[in-house]
């Protein structure tokens, strides 16, 4: 029979809920921490050695950012506007951009590095991040075209809106628990909904709009599915929706829009194998850059090929 030495037993009972020092987790090595510790702070903490100018950032921005954010940072569709909006914060429709709103330039470096380009996060080198950051600052007239942004010059960048932020001071509004004569019934103004923006079709019988529908209008979707598709193409629809639709659904970044026969015809002429090869390996076209597998590198080659079939067959 297993028997605890009495001294250990006493120790176990008296230690209560205290957790022994080595019981949980294991030490994180410096190498492990370095691999994950990517955050940058306004005081420069975390900025790696490296650098680049706006001039060097321009071609990178055009290839990797402009498809969504626009060549001048003006934003495409509903993708974020990056530049402009000076003095707009008190207007009816404020334009909150890097230049007009963001308090710190370090945020830009940190965010581009951690989350951009949208379909390929954490794919940029540190120097590329410096260059693109410099270019976005340049688009906002915050640095010169030839300004070398690096870990030492970062502190020289002044953000116009930095002083406008203040720490939460709510509760800012005091209501009381009134029960009688709480408002003047004659003075009440009742305003209904603004027409045409609420997707109420979700709740109407026979509206024909699926509740989870996302993206193009129903008419366009019907046009796509009206084409008779091969088994491969049908299998590729889910991949298309997950990985390709962001660009190919709207036709941004020079991506041929699904359903646009004129845009697809010359591509279809090159043959399915070529289209699939470009989709898998990446392709620099006249109007934009197709990243390998659209940035979804975890997709199998087969899934990509099926998605290409879906898009091309839906566009002829």
């Amino acid at each position, binding site marked *: 029979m297993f028997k605890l030495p009495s001294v250990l037993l006493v120790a176990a009972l008296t230690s209560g809920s205290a957790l022994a020092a080595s019981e949980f987790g294991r030490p*994180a090595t410096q190498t492990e921490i370095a691999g994950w510790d990517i*955050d940058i702070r306004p005081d420069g903490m975390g900025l790696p050695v490296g650098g680049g100018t706006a001039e060097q950032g321009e071609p990178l921005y055009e290839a990797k950012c402009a498809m969504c954010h626009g060549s001048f940072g003006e934003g495409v569709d509903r993708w974020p506007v990056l530049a402009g909006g000076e003095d707009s914060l008190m207007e009816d429709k404020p334009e909150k951009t890097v230049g007009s709103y963001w308090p710190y330039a370090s*945020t830009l470096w*940190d965010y581009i590095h951690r989350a951009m380009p949208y379909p390929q996060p954490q794919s940029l080198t540190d120097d590329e991040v410096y260059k693109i950051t410099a270019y976005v600052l340049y688009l906002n007239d915050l640095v010169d075209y030839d300004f070398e942004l690096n870990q030492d010059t970062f502190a020289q960048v002044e953000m116009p809106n930095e002083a406008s932020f203040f720490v939460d001071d709510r509760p800012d509004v005091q209501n009381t628990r009134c029960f009688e*004569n709480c408002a003047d019934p004659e003075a*009440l103004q009742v305003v*209904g909904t603004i027409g045409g923006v609420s997707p109420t079709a979700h709740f109407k019988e026979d509206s024909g709009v699926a509740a989870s529908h996302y993206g193009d209008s129903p008419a366009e979707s019907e046009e796509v599915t009206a084409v008779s598709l091969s088994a491969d193409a049908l299998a590729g629809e889910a991949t298309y929706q997950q990985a390709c639709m962001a660009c190919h659904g709207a036709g941004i970044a020079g991506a041929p829009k699904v359903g646009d026969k004129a845009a697809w015809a010359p591509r279809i002429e090159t043959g399915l194998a070529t289209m699939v090869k470009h989709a898998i390996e990446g392709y620099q076209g006249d109007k934009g850059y197709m990243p390998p597998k659209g940035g979804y590198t975890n997709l199998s080659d087969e899934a990509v090929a099926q998605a290409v079939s879906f898009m091309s067959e839906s566009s002829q």
Partner: protein
Amino acid sequence: MKSMYEPGTQALMEAVAQEASQLKGSDRRDFLKKGLAVAAGVTAGAAAPALAKGNPADMAPNLPSWTKQLGRGVVARPYGRPSDFTDLQRRTVPWLTASPESSISFSPLQDLKGIITPSGLHFERYHGGIPEIPPESFQLMVHGLVERPLIFSLEDLQRMPSVTEIRFIECPANGGMEWKGAQMEALQFTHGMISCSEWTGVRLSTLLDYVGVKPEGKWILAEGSDAAGMSRSIPIEKALDDALICYAQNGEPLRPEQGFPVRLMNPGWEGNTSVKWLRRLEVGDKPWYHREETSKYTDLMPDGRSRKFTFVQEANSVVTNPCPENPIRQKGFIEIEGLAWSGRGSIKAVDLSFDGGVTWRKAELKGLVLPKALTRFSYKTQWNGEPWMIQSRAMDDTGYVQPTLAQLREERGTNSIYHKNSIHTWNVHANGEVHNVQIT
């Protein structure tokens, strides 16, 4: 028993039912609708109205088909799912965002009872899609201003002392589409960015105590491993108060949508701070001012300045019955119901107005009343076709009373996007329809 349908129609209906059972959600609903329309067309026209309310062949005095045959056995569905005859679903507003990987869906509050949101209906908010993380590869790194930088496995976390609490999570943009005017004709879209679950995990204070925070450690960066690398700076006071490192929701592992295998949970605070797919906690002496606490999740005021670190979700409430999706279907008795919540503590009282805020009366709180959790309220009354302007007004245990829209707009203007918790108005028409209106 003799079917009222032609044999051919009966077979067709069975085929429709069989096929529909393979489908999900809206597809199933649409399919059933079409299938039934076809079936109705095949038989005499008189059958159609009856079909809409139930199949007379299955209703008294007839014995229904399911009484005269065996149903499914155990484990036919090892993980059960809702009845095929229900249709509860999260929905999105397509024009809100540029792409579905960085978007939001809304919980169907109009269809839910009690205070717990079924896990599959919890509202969703991602900034870079849902990662699928094998739990054996999960690591939580805790480092920075700590005595012992450590990496925890999921198993480590699950062996540590745990707590279980019912708490809501609300996106601070809930209601934010209505700062400038009423525009959503659905409760799901006016208030559906809130859900409430039972969460289980380790107190962050337990974890921090274990690694040993250095005296100069005042802030913690919480970072996700998703494609957005979601990151927020959390003050050490919150971390040592009630923050949780969660691995379970409503009794089972977190759903992928909710951060499987591990998320941070900051009770009562804006949902974005409860970082999902958590991979790293770094203790520092200052906040990081990352994108989601500068460019986003800051509140622009009419004078051009902006509030930052607007963490707490102030007291809020809404009537869920009636609402645009739940019109009043007949005169007579009606139980007005709704939900109230406060990020500062417990709901103390909810009042109702039927005349747009001129007079108010007290509603009852129904069921569990827990801090930082959805709380259900009820008021039993009669409706006889008179137009109503229904409003609810919550008060929490700090004494804070939910403000009017006019009060909020006067202080904050209409461009602050987040934290719109004003009293909401439903206009009940004489025919029982319910519309979203604003009273100014």
